[in-house]
């Protein structure tokens, strides 16, 4: 009951995906332990998912309050206040070359994680968070003699400290604070700028959450489990200002380097909720990459736009448009990726995504026929 009351008294906090600004949730930290989103959900995030986002198709006559109260790790059974475990699984059915005789079907176990949050005080001012899990071997290792990385790895372990009111400090191993974070780690605004599924880094981040803006600075040393020459050390910043309750505008930047490369990226970000459950957001940026071995540099751009339209509670129409151009000269290829599909929360702790993806590459002397793929994803959380 206390949890339900909390939800209705504080409707303007929390976020699972950037799209959920359309439910009044502008910042990430009320739903996630990590202030940039992603990773383990806290009690409030679990309750929002179950009570506000999930369809009522298969939940009988249960109210949002009741679903929220059952959203804990053991359902209604409360765990001791200082410990919050969780499990996450994401699996993907992928069909490439859709509609052709060369179509290939694959099932990919993308994520099988156990996470644990240890609360060091009842006010949750100091929290230890860790996520450990299975990661599939990247496909490139199937055709090389390189030693394969371990499939069982830590994805994050950090200490979060509420230093002062609205001010958070994060120390440890985590994702870089850059851009608008969403779960598609293959997206151009994640995979192509070294902020993808396995690009976590050791470092320190400071976050200030004001009433109408938030700002984060992240200083990182790279992944210390990698060889020293490979570690991508640098810094990133993220700023987002709420022009209105339902409209934000901001900027983000990141610099990283190791012995072989140097990367500078910066982007404009914006999110707009135009009705309850209906939103669009975009991130448009420049990427400057220098290959230290050859002393060559390239300057290109990327763009990511997503629209999420709730048809009814738990069932959403999803559109994504992405662009990438590695170099700004006219001969460089432009990659466009357009996907349409659905994002569904049919049952508590369950998410389905279905997307038909069109990849289009356009360039002088190098244009190729469109590639189509079908992606059906299941996400289960305990």
């Amino acid at each position, binding site marked *: 009951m206390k949890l339900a009351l909390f939800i209705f008294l504080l409707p303007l906090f929390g976020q699972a995906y950037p799209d959920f600004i359309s439910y009044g949730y502008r910042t990430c930290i009320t739903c996630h332990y990590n202030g940039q989103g992603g990773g383990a959900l806290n009690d409030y995030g679990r309750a929002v998912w179950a009570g506000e986002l999930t369809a009522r198709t298969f939940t009988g006559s249960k109210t949002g309050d009741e679903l929220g109260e059952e959203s804990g790790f053991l359902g209604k059974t409360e765990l001791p206040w200082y410990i919050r475990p969780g499990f996450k699984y994401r699996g993907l059915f992928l069909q490439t070359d859709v509609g052709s005789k060369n179509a290939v079907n694959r099932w990919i176990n993308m994520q099988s994680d156990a996470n644990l949050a240890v609360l060091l005080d009842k006010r949750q001012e100091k929290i230890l968070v860790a996520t450990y899990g299975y990661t599939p071997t990247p496909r490139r290792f199937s055709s090389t003699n390189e030693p394969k990385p371990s499939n069982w790895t830590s994805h994050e372990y950090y200490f979060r400290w509420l230093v002062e009111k609205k001010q958070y400090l994060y120390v440890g191993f985590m994702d870089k604070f850059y851009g608008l974070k969403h779960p598609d780690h293959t997206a151009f605004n994640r995979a192509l700028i070294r902020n993808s599924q396995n690009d976590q880094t050791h470092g320190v981040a400071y976050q200030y959450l004001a009433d109408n803006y938030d700002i984060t600075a992240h200083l990182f040393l790279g992944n210390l489990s990698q060889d020293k020459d490979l570690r991508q050390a640098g810094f990133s910043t993220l700023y987002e200002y709420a022009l209105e309750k339902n409209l934000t505008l901001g900027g983000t930047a990141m610099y990283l380097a190791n012995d072989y490369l140097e990367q500078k990226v910066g982007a404009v970000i914006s999110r707009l909720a*135009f*009705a309850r459950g209906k939103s*669009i957001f975009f991130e448009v940026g420049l990427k400057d990459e220098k290959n230290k071995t050859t002393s060559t540099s390239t300057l290109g751009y990327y763009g990511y736009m997503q*629209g999420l339209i709730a048809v009814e509670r738990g069932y959403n129409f999803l559109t994504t448009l992405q662009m990438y151009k590695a170099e700004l000269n*006219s001969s460089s290829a432009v990659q466009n990726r357009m996907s349409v599909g659905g994002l569904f929360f049919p049952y508590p702790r369950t998410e389905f995504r279905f997307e038909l993806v069109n990849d*289009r590459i356009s360039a002088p002397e*190098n*244009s190729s026929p*469109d590639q189509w793929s079908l992606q059906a994803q299941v996400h289960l959380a305990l």
Partner: protein
Amino acid sequence: MTAGLGLFSWQEKVPVILNSNKFDTNATFSSLGPSIGFQGLITPRYRYGVDFAYHSGVVDILKLDGAVSPRRNFKSYWLSGKLLYRWTKTFALGPDILYSQKSIQDLPDSTSYGGFLNLEYDLFTEVKLIQALGSVGDSGSLAYSFTLVRTF
């Protein structure tokens, strides 16, 4: 009345010459440009619209073995008529029929037709985003556009 700015991407067949043989092959068109339009109500739930868009950009002819696959500039005029069903207060969808006239550098002018499904979201009171998915010409390939529109 509406006025907007759109981003367009589609594939359509264009003529190429390979080993002295002339034939049609797919080419990717990418463009940007303004549009104006008009919408009227049929019933509170249904409305119709007519849009005119002028856009210009580049066309990349798909790579063929032994053929030159150049990039060309082009400009295109799109005239479309649509019927929209208002699903929710802010969201409408419906079919859109297109007539297209285009001029490609070094190639003859040509005419083509297309069909789209339009999805329109009212972002603000007078501003909407129109997302169109369909196909143009006989390419059998996806065509799409995103147009930001202001209503007057």
